[in-house]
């Protein structure tokens, strides 16, 4: 299991994203899938950086590993902020013309498209979001 923990701020954004990229590459995803995993994780990570700790600094932890039967790869993104499930936002209307497009919700829409399974739980004072991608 690969694991990192650090303060949830934009200064650490590149380190967090590099970690995910390296771990996804290490388990053998091709470039296209690594990019999709990165895209999904970026969304969740940005939510934590921007919203988890409105009043003070707090940490973000990322754990990732292949699952027990080797069918895929899971990434857990953990924070200690107020209860918040980013997957509960409504989806945008992707057929709306440009001037009517809602800017919000697009990111989570993309997470749902590229990730095979996801799960949110509130455990103690943690938000734990798990993203799962099959190998193929």
């Amino acid at each position, binding site marked *: 299991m690969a694991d990192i923990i650090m303060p949830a701020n934009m200064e650490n954004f590149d380190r967090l994203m590099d970690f995910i990229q390296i771990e996804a590459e290490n388990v053998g995803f091709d470039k296209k899938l690594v990019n999709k995993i*990165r*895209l999904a994780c*970026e969304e969740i990570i*940005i939510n934590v950086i921007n919203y988890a700790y409105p009043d003070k600094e707090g940490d973000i932890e990322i754990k990732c590993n292949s699952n027990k039967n080797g069918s895929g790869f899971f990434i857990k993104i953990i924070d200690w902020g107020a209860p918040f499930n980013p997957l509960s936002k409504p989806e945008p209307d992707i057929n709306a013309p*440009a001037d009517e*497009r809602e800017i919000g919700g*697009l990111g989570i829409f993309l997470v749902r498209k590229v990730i095979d399974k996801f799960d949110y739980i509130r455990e103690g004072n943690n938000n734990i979001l798990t993203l799962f991608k099959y190998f193929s």
Partner: protein
Amino acid sequence: METNFSVNYKNKVVKVTLAGSLDAKRAPALADEIKKLIGKDIEKIVFFAKDLEYISSAGLRVIIFSKQKIGTDIKLYMVGATADVLDVIRMSGIDNIMEITDIYEE
């Protein structure tokens, strides 16, 4: 932070050259440059994307924003984007607000 884009405005055409990653950290700087063009006489915005390796929803939002803020009757072009980037653009549906091409002719 390295600059991953350049913006050039001439003869009613804005040319934006993108490279590397257009992600949540880098997209705000591009949004700021585009804000400076609000109110100017613009017919087209051309994104040159052959060196763009990665785009996230933050990058897509700046593209949508450019059309919403500068004028919804302007034409948007995405030139030379890689298959991975086009895949994300199509998933999001914003291919509906732009023309996707391999080359751009003046």
